């Protein structure tokens, strides 16, 4: 994979661009976040296709989640998820204590209100990857202290 700084810069510019080219009304109703998330979705679909080309078949949902936490996260963010928790009823919480895309922003509570913008793309990435593997889900992220963040994945049973 290419040097991670390249993707970080591109990601930051992407967010600036989406917000700059949004009209007045859009900024308040979260349309930009949705746009970023949809971009991440399509990218996630393609990425997963490439990553799972040579891996063995996944046995069940937990196997899929472990793949996301280890191989997928390592390939995209150069580290693994630090903590995976589940209630075995379709809710998974992935904890990353030093999220690469937020690490440069601050080390505590500064700029906390801007964090959701920078997490939207990654949420879409996870949602797209899961959807291509046959798991329909809703992915949200929350930050209490930078740069640690929690991704919550809710599996939608058909």
């Amino acid at each position: 994979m290419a040097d991670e700084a390249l993707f970080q810069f591109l990601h930051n510019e992407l967010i600036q661009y989406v917000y700059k080219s949004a009209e007045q009304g859009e900024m308040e109703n979260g349309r930009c976040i949705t746009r970023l998330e949809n971009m991440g979705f399509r990218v996630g679909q393609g990425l997963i296709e490439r990553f799972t080309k040579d891996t063995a078949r996944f046995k069940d949902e937990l196997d899929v989640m472990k793949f996301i936490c280890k191989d997928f996260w390592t390939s995209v963010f150069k580290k693994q998820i630090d903590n995976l928790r589940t209630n075995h009823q379709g809710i998974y919480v992935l904890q990353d204590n030093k999220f690469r895309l937020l690490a440069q922003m601050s080390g505590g509570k500064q700029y906390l209100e801007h964090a959701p913008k920078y997490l939207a793309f990654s949420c879409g990435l996870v949602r797209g990857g899961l959807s291509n593997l046959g798991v329909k889900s809703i992915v949200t992220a929350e930050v209490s202290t930078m740069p640690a963040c929690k991704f919550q994945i809710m599996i939608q049973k058909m």
Partner: protein
Amino acid sequence: MAVCIAVIAKENYPLYIRSIPTENELKFHYTVHTSLDVVEEKISAVGKALVDQRELYLGLLYPTEDYKVYGYVTNSKVKFVIVVDSSNTALRDNEIRSMFRKLHNSYTDVMCNPFYNPGDPIQSKAFDNMVSAMMVQVC
């Protein structure tokens, strides 16, 4: 050396299906459609160890009097089906596996193409060329 190659989406509709000779296309469509049942059975086989659960290549799905049908499922539940002529007995398992490898690689490239929407029929010329290369030897 294949007579018909098909790519089926996870919702079981064809994304791409090509066969030669082109007169009997409907027969091949039917063959591929019936092979989908066998594919489902193989990937959901829980107790039987007939097919290694972790492998993507499914092997020979079923032989008919003129043709042999092979299957392969990706992790994104996209199925590849190759129909070969039974008279062509020189084809070994390894060759079929390598054909599926090539198909999977080309399909991944199609997926990553920004102009392609997942779920649409495949219209990429590069994919067409790769499939033609695999089929041309029959005539």
